[in-house]
Structures are given as structure tokens and as C-alpha cells.
């Protein structure tokens, strides 16, 4: 039942946005709606954990633990983005950067975007999964090109074209999966729940080829290198709350799609194939993002490359495949979504105060905006995996899993890149946050709803970081049942 509430709220809000008159009031209603969706998603998660299995609406919707986890992640970030949008869009309207009408268009696409993302983990049919992911691309392209500048339209075009090609390849992979299914003499179906129980009798060669297309296709959307080229452009040009949604959850929905197919591959007895491919793409992503982070000059692009790095870590975590690694990877999905949203909101505040993306021109953030500055400082430590923040826990779990499974080389690579990226981040942010305020930048007041969202996210980051140390046995248990479908 909860799933219908979760899917219904964004749709209703999207319709309401068409008729809304006052954008500020609507922003608050919007935020309340996502709070309700968040509560519903937590209830859904609880139900699936205790019932172990739940399935609604015959063929169309399928919820298991894996989808429940992703729905919670989407709901958390969507709520945070809705809360942040009130102040951010209000400020843009106040400074006449956008008109009141455009603000309502923003809310319309915001809700449609969230709806399409909620659809991804909820659908059962692999063809509908594809349609939902393609919809997320098409809708969010408007939000990337929202400001109508040359840069943002260029970014939106690259985003829509590269992701569409990638996703067409994923459709090819999906068709091959359905071919493998129909070849084994079973009736025509693309439902995931029909495919998994018979995975072991499917033709392994076809599945392997199909999975390559799936990984390249959805990997493009997930931002795995070397198909990541759209990602820094789109993330740096989008409206700040949308950057958080793109980086925090859009990439994760693509990871979710890869996992759905990956589970079929694992069940057909080809675990090592899945594992090698995931680890390979993960390691390439880490290496490439590490290089770009070192030499980066643009604040939002820096954060975008860091998303590629974290997607790489998640991919390695799933590739390692032991319960500890899976638990780490799932946690990392959540932690990265929360922490990266925090950082993009902070970056949004900084950019709108300094009117620049270039990190060389941004100095003395703590003096200009004490609250944002301090939160960003904490966020940098959280993002680079410093204890007691939650990313530290998930990263250490993945690295421990690499050591215990004997993959010393992978563990060493992870540690090396994480150390380099840590250094680069501290260097870039140290220069931006401290130092003297450049002329012409006044001290800024900060809106209450803006502060609230930072506190909410910080609470999640710190709370999880401390709590998880005591709860890791439950986590391992969750991870074990997670990949059983």
C-alpha cells in the first residue's frame, strides 16, 4: 500500500504545480508532500524487512528488499532537495534571475523527475524499468538546461544524447535477456520475478553478451568511466537542488538496474564474470576521477568527479560480492547520496553568493557565510571518508572485504586513490573556506529552511556513522538476504 502513496505524491504535486499561483507557498506544500513520501518509504522498508517478501499489484509492481532500500534513498534525497528548493528558488525569484512562472515550471519538472525515479525500483517488468530510466533522462534534461545559458543548453544536449545512446544499448541487452528466456522454452515474459527462479537454465553465452550491453548501457547513466563524459557537464550546470538529485540518486537508480540484471547473472552461476566486470569498471572510474579531481578548477565539477569516484567504489563493493562487501556497498549508496547532497547544497549557496564556479576566485567562505562554511567543512571530511562520519564506515567495510577475500591488489588500489582524493579535496576546500574575503562579496544571511536541510543531512551522516558500529551484524544479515531476490 505504501508504494502507491510514494508513487502518487509526486504525481499529484506535479498536477498541483500546474495550477499553483504562489511559488513560495507551493514550495512548502511540495516539501510537506515529500516528507510524507519519506515516512511512507520508511514504513515500506520496515514491512519488507520483516515480511522478507512483498509483492503488490500483480504483474506491474514488485517490491523486495533491494528496491525498498533504493526507494528510501530516493525519498531521503528528494525530501532534502524539496526543502532546499524553497529557499533557493525563492532567492532566484527574488533576484529576478527567473520569473515566478518559471519557478512553477521548475516544480513541475522536479515532481515528474522524482516520480520517474520512484518508478525505477518499483516496477517488475525489465522493459518498463528501461522506460522509467529513459524518462528520468528526458525529464531531467530540462532541469539541466534550466537557466538557458549557452553552457547549460550545451550540457543538457550532451546529457540527453550520450545517455540516450547508452540506454539504447541497455535496451539491446534487455532484448537479449528476453531472448535467452524465450529460448529456454518458457512463455514470453520480461518480468524480473519470472526470470530469476529459472536463471540457472538460461543460455549462459547469451546472458554474458547481454550483460556487457547492460553494463555499458546503464553504466553510462550511472557515470562509470569511460562512459562518464556527460556527468560533470550536467551536474555542474543543473540547478543546485537538481545537482543533488542527479548525483545522489539518479546515478544510483542506474546502479539498481545493473544489479537487477547482475542478480540474474549470479543466479545462472556466472558470479566471477559479474565480479570481474564490476571491479574493472569501478577501478577505471576511480583512476580517472582521481586525476580530474587533482587538477579541477570548477567547484561543481569537482563534486561531479567525486560522484564518479564514489560510483566506482560502489561498483567495486558489489563486484567483491561477499556479504560484508555488499553491506558496505549498499550503505555507501545511502551515505554517498546523503553526503553528496549536503555538499551540492553547500556549493549551491557558495556559487549563488560569489556568482562564480571557479575555485580560484572563491575565498573566505567561512567569513561570508559562517553556517554554510562550517557545514561544508564537515561535509568535506565526511565525503572523503573521515571518522566518525558514515562514509568512513562503508568504505572500511568494502576495504575489509577486499582484504578478507584475498584481493590485496584491489584493496591497495582503493586505499591509494582514496588517499590521493582526500589530499586533493582538503587542498581545494581549505583554500576556498579559509582566507580573506574578496572585495564585493558581502556577508550573507541564510534562510531558515536552508539551514534546516543541512542539519537534517548532518544528523543522518553523523548518526549513521556512530550507530552503525553497533549494528553491523544486522547489516550483514540484510546483505545476505538482499541478493537472494
Amino acid at each position, binding site marked *: 500500500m505504501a508504494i502507491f502513496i510514494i508513487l502518487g505524491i509526486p504525481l499529484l504535486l506535479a498536477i498541483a504545480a500546474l495550477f499553483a499561483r504562489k511559488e513560495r507557498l507551493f514550495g512548502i506544500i511540495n516539501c510537506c508532500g515529500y516528507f510524507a513520501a519519506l515516512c511512507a518509504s520508511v514504513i515500506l522498508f520496515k514491512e519488507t524487512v520483516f515480511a522478507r517478501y512483498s509483492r503488490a499489484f500483480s504483474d506491474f509492481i514488485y517490491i523486495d528488499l533491494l528496491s525498498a532500500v533504493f526507494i528510501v534513498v530516493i525519498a531521503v534525497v528528494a525530501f532534502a532537495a524539496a526543502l532546499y528548493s524553497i529557499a533557493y528558488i525563492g532567492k532566484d525569484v527574488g533576484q529576478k534571475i527567473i520569473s515566478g512562472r518559471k519557478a512553477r515550471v521548475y516544480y513541475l519538472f522536479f515532481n515528474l523527475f522524482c516520480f520517474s525515479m520512484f518508478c525505477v525500483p518499483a516496477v517488475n517488468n525489465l522493459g518498463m524499468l528501461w*522506460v522509467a530510466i529513459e524518462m528520468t533522462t528526458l525529464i531531467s534534461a*530540462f532541469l539541466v538546461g534550466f537557466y538557458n545559458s549557452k553552457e547549460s543548453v550545451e550540457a543538457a544536449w550532451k546529457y540527453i544524447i550520450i545517455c540516450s545512446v547508452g540506454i539504447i544499448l541497455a535496451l539491446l541487452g534487455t*532484448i537479449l535477456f528476453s531472448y535467452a528466456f524465450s529460448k529456454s522454452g518458457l512463455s514470453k515474459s520480461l518480468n524480473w520475478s519470472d526470470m530469476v527462479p529459472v536463471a540457472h537454465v538460461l543460455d549462459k553465452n547469451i546472458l554474458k553478451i547481454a550483460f556487457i550491453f547492460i553494463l555499458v548501457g546503464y553504466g553510462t547513466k550511472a557515470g562509470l568511466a569511460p562512459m562518464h563524459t556527460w556527468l560533470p557537464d550536467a551536474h555542474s550546470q543543473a540547478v543546485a537542488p537538481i545537482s543533488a538529485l542527479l548525483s545522489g540518486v539518479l546515478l544510483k537508480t542506474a546502479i539498481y538496474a545493473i544489479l537487477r540484471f547482475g542478480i540474474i547473472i549470479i543466479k545462472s552461476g556466472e558470479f566471477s564474470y559479474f565480479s570481474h566486470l564490476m571491479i574493472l569498471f569501478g577501478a577505471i572510474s576511480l583512476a580517472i576521477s582521481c586525476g580530474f579531481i587533482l587538477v579541477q578548477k570548477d567547484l561543481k565539477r569537482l563534486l561531479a568527479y567525486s560522484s564518479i569516484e564514489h560510483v566506482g567504489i560502489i561498483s567495486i563493493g558489489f563486484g567483491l560480492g561477499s556479504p560484508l562487501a555488499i553491506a558496505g556497498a549498499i550503505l555507501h549508496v545511502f551515505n554517498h547520496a546523503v553526503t553528496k547532497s549536503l555538499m551540492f547544497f553547500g556549493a549551491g549557496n557558495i556559487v549563488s553568493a560569489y556568482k562564480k564556479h571557479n575555485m580560484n576566485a572563491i575565498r573566505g567562505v567561512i567569513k561570508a557565510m559562517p553556517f554554510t562554511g562550517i557545514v561544508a567543512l564537515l561535509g568535506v571530511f565526511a565525503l572523503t571518508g573521515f571518522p566518525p562520519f558514515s562514509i568512513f564506515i562503508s568504505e572500511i567495510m568494502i576495504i575489509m572485504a577486499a582484504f578478507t577475500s584475498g584481493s590485496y591488489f584491489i584493496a591497495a588500489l582503493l586505499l591509494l586513490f582514496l588517499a590521493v582524493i582526500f589530499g586533493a579535496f582538503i587542498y581545494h576546500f581549505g583554500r576556498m573556506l579559509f582566507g580573506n574575503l574578496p572585495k564585493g562579496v558581502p556577508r550573507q544571511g541564510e534562510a531558515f529552511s536552508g539551514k534546516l536541510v543541512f542539519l537534517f543531512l548532518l544528523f543522518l551522516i553523523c548518526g549513521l556513522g556512530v550507530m552503525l558500529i553497533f549494528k553491523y551484524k544486522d547489516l550483514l544479515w540484510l546483505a545476505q538476504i538482499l541478493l537472494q531476490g
Partner: protein
Amino acid sequence: MQGIILFVLLASTYLMVIAKRMPALIRSFRYQSLCLFGVTFIVALTQREPELYVISGLLFVLKVSLIPYLLYRIIRRIKVNEELGLFINPQISLLWALAFTYLSWIFASYLFSSNNAILTGTLAIAFFVVSAGMFLMVFRMTALSQIIGLLVMENGLFLLASTVSGGMPFFVEIAIFFDVLVSVLIMGFFVYKINKLFTHIDVNKLSRLKG
């Protein structure tokens, strides 16, 4: 009959690869979609399934009529140079296309070891159409030709899906059609925007974002 239509489909794809100007490309796309409609309609006639009639009808309305019309309209409205901005000239493109055809044949016969020549041929053509679409997207540098490349890839996948697994489930097929229509509308909207901001639609010159 089916073999002849497939042959025409193959020929129209070659025409797209060697096309030099926008209208020629769109016209060949229309021929290709028409062939696809023919193939589906014949299957619908033989199997007498109402769902297949609906799908072939949608194919005709969307890909043969509506989408080419929209693309022509965009060309007329933005009044840009109709050249495609070839990265590779038509002769060498044709050689590439021949190579792709051969590779698709090998791939199809490796993947689906069957004795049915028409089936393997259809699959080879489907893979070739997908790779030709990819080729158009990479080596033709205008925004519009990239849209057409995407549509061509989608056509190839439609052919593939209808031959290997008897088509996708009905509602998925409908959803994909809807999706294709929406994506053409949205991309067309962005082509207008690019043309307005940059006064050209040469994608190769979109290089403000780097690093």
C-alpha cells in the same frame, strides 16, 4: 515477400549512411520505417493477433508520418544550412557500412546458431541497423542527424525484438513508442534552443565545457 522488404530496409539504411543533406536523410528514414511497418504488418496478418495490428498501426502513425513530419518542420523553421557536416565522406562511409554489415552477420550467426537463413539474415540486418545508427550519431556532426541516428538505432532494436523474442510484451511496446515520441519532441525543443543561442546546430562546435 518478407525477404524483399528486408532487402529494401537494408538498402534504405545504406542510403542514410551515404546521404549528404538533411532532407535525403529524413526521406530514407521514412523508407526504413515504412519497411519496418511492412514486416510487422505481414506478421500481424499471418498471426492474426489484434495487438500486432495496434503496434503496426502505431508504427505507421509515429515513425512513418508524425516523426518525419516533425523533423521536416524543424528544418524549415530553423532555416540552417542543410549540409550534414560529414566527418567521413560518403564513399568511405559506405565502406564502413559494408564492414558493419559483415560483422553483424558474423555476430548474428554466432549468437543465434540456427539453420533458418531468413531468421539469421533478419538478425544480421537488425544489428547492422543499430550499428549504422551509432555511426550516424558519431560521424555526422549536426544535432538533427544525431536525433535521426538515435531513431535508427531504435528501429534496429524494434526489428531485433520482434524477430528474436516475438516482440516485447504489449504494454512495454506501447510505453517505448510513447518514449520515442517524447524524446523526439524534447530533443527537437533543444535543437531550437541550440539554434537560438548559438545560431548553428553544429554539435562539434559545442565546446564550452571542458575538464
